[in-house]
């Protein structure tokens, strides 16, 4: 492969570098848009597996002992795989690998990522990690059932489902994923820092890019903790070292391990695990800000504050990790420290919520499907965030730890909320991807089904948690403190979950149908200001900008500008072009 091909067309038009065979165009593609689609399809496919797993878990919980193919071991395996796939292989990959890849070059006015070859390699490495993970379903003993946190010593001891091949494949898959993410992440930050179009200063970048940028830095600095813990656990399992393994009796047998610290693993895991929440949340924050601004025809309220908040949340996310470990027997002063930092992180987060609301305030709100999902997100995120404040306090967390309250909290805040934004983003940017709209009626049905359905699932879970119903249990058995009605509630949750799952099939059908038969959108259908909608060719072709890369003259939020035709000014409009828009508007008014 020659050097020219490696560079692709990162900084100049070179017609010879346009791919022209099916393989180079759609399979071994170095075009960030194709790679983004590849990432997205893989992530959604593996996410569907995780969705089905959650459905099976719900069947067991709602109707215990009705389904013979679910036993306690397989239940734990489904819990584990559902969690890990959703957090890492779906959300991280779709938000950064999918939307990050698609939007970064287009929104900052670059022709492609600065290292297109590395970008392609990142996707194929990610696909390999997914294949290794999924292969664990087919090995003897099945996938690991250690819970998505993979806590040792139980994760690698016999007695835990998948303690032989399953856990190893999981750890190896994570290592491969981290390599893939690092390749992608280095590309994203270098592209944002070095390949912005002329005039695109940092403070003119749309918030989507700010969110992706800071989340990528978090990922680059946090994933090493998972890498380190995965490597050390592989050593413990395969070579017999004792990094995390204490002296232990297993099934009546004394093992050779001694002196290792399982708590150390917990620290490493959560040092990754908490920033991971924001690796998922920050791009979502950014994208929802842009969707709200466009569909409310209003500049985002407090742009600077929003940027500062993204950075502050990113920084703080590294000093709160031990709030996941209040029950591990830590020094009470540590608990105090981590509770305090956790509460502090609520300040920039709340600031963002207020700013979204104030952007909506007296805006020209268009209740399009993306906007519905964006408003839905504000509800679910506020809801999940407030229960987070409760759990951030040691004294409230201790009784609620490992109950359904925690399950409800983290599903609202990092399951449903980012997914709402992802849907908003897909409905919003679908015309950019395909030149067509997603079907509006199906979209609205999808929104209401998902929004009301997820509330029907997770709101009752908070009550189950208060009752003390423990998470991760295959069956509740006979307990005095859990009333009969809890089981009725569980059955209701299961019915809602199945309905929400089915509604997602309508979404998938909508995407497939609309890709080919959807209503044509035309250029810039939402009348957005940001650069991705201003390409010469629509939808954008290879190299994004045709002959000339755009020059940026303003920030991305000039909406409802008085005296301007069409009420908005795209980022790449020069002062002369703006004058033309003003005169056009004057002409129209005179005619009236």
């Amino acid at each position: 492969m020659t050097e020219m091909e490696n560079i692709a067309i990162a900084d100049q038009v070179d017609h010879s570098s346009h791919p022209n065979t099916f393989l180079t165009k759609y399979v071994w593609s170095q075009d960030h848009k194709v790679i983004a689609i590849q990432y997205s399809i893989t992530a959604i496919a593996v996410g569907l597996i995780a969705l089905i797993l959650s459905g099976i878990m719900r069947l067991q919980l709602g109707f215990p002992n009705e389904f013979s193919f679910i036993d306690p071991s397989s239940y734990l395996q489904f819990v584990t795989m559902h969690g890990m796939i959703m957090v890492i292989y779906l959300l991280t990959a779709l938000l950064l690998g999918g939307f990050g890849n698609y939007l970064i070059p287009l929104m900052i006015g670059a022709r492609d990522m600065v290292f297109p070859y590395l970008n392609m390699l990142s996707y194929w490495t990610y696909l390999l990690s997914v294949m290794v993970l999924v292969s664990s379903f087919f090995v003897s003993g099945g996938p690991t059932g250690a819970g998505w946190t993979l806590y040792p010593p139980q994760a690698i001891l016999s007695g835990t489902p998948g303690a032989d091949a399953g856990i190893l494949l999981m750890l190896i898959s994570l290592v491969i994923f981290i390599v893939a993410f690092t390749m992608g992440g280095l590309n994203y930050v270098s592209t944002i820092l070095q390949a912005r179009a002329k005039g695109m200063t940092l403070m003119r970048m749309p918030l989507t890019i700010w969110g992706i940028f800071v989340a990528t830095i978090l990922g680059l600095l946090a994933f090493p903790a998972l890498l380190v813990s995965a490597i050390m656990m592989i050593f413990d399992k395969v070579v017999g070292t004792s990094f995390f393994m204490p002296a232990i009796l297993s099934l009546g047998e004394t093992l050779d391990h001694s002196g290792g610290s399982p708590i150390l693993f917990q620290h490493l895991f959560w040092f990754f695990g908490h920033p991971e929440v924001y690796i998922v949340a920050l791009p979502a924050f950014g994208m929802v800000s842009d969707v709200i601004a466009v569909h409310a025809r209003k500049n985002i309220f407090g742009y600077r504050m929003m940027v500062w908040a993204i950075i502050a949340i990113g920084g703080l996310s590294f000093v709160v990790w031990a709030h996941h470990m209040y029950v591990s027997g830590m020094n009470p002063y540590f608990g105090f420290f981590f509770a305090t930092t956790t509460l502090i992180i609520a300040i920039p987060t709340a600031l963002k919520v207020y700013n979204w609301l104030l952007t909506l305030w007296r805006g020209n709100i268009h209740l399009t499907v993306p906007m519905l999902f964006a408003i839905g997100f504000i509800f679910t995120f506020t809801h999940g965030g407030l229960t987070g404040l409760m759990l951030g306090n040691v004294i409230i967390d201790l009784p609620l730890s490992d109950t359904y309250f925690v399950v409800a909290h983290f599903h609202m805040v990092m399951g449903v909320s980012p997914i709402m934004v992802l849907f908003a983003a897909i409905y919003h940017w679908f015309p950019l991807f395909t030149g067509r709209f997603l079907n509006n009626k199906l979209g609205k049905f999808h929104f209401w089904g998902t929004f009301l359905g997820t509330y029907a699932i997770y709101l009752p879970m908070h009550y189950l948690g208060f009752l003390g119903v423990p998470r991760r249990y295959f069956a509740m058995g006979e307990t005095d403190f859990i009333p009969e009605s809890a089981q009725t509630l569980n059955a209701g949750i299961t019915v809602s979950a199945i309905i929400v799952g089915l509604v997602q099939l309508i979404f998938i059908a909508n995407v497939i149908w609309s890709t080919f038969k959807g209503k044509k959108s035309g250029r810039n259908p939402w009348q957005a200001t940001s650069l991705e909608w201003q390409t010469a060719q629509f939808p954008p072709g290879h190299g994004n900008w045709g002959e000339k890369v755009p020059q940026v003259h303003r920030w991305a939020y000039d909406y409802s500008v008085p005296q301007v035709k069409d009420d908005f000014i795209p980022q790449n409009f020069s002062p002369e072009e703006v004058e033309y828009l003003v005169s056009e508007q004057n002409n129209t008014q005179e005619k009236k």
Partner: protein
Amino acid sequence: MQIFKTLQIKPWLPQELEQEQETNLFPSVLNRDKAATTALKFFLAVVSVIFLLFTITFLQRTQSFDFQALSGEPWLPFTNADILLQNSTYLLVASISIILARKFAELENFKGVIILLTATSLFTLLFIGGQVQVWQQLNQSGFYIYANPANSYYFLLTGMHALHIIAGVLVFIRCIWHFLLDLSYQRLASRLKLCALYWHFLLFIWLFLFFLLTSDTETFKTIALFCGF
């Protein structure tokens, strides 16, 4: 701090537009060298975090009851760490020769470039060979990877370091390959600049690991006391 100034900009105000026209803030053509340097710096940050985390776990483990340092007593392998010193010298020479190779590339001296590129490859491979030899010696003397946490960490940390070196060698070979194809001294020099940064970084990491892994129990006690373990 430029970043704080940048973050105070109010992009919605008209004067920001005028300011931009005066200063022409950003070049329109991508500078690939700058982009590669940025990416490498971020990568070095990632690698630093990896070794930092390993080190923290190691320091904690040095204080456990079953930890037996690898130096301090006459029968321990690194009380006399001559072989590791020898390996360090290899890596040091490789790091120096890579700088010289860049100088010669700037002078467009083909012979000098080839000799120094070969020297860099050779000394780096000698380093890896030397490390493998130490692993074999440890195994032969009964210091197995699972026998003691100090041994485990020795193999783990030096293994991770060696993996990074090998990855560097692969990139380095690619640089040589491209140079032989296009004979562009300018490109070679800019690539070698990045390689040199990586080599120096790995030399630094190695010297740090060398100090860490060959310290005796007393030193670990002092460090742990200092770090609050």
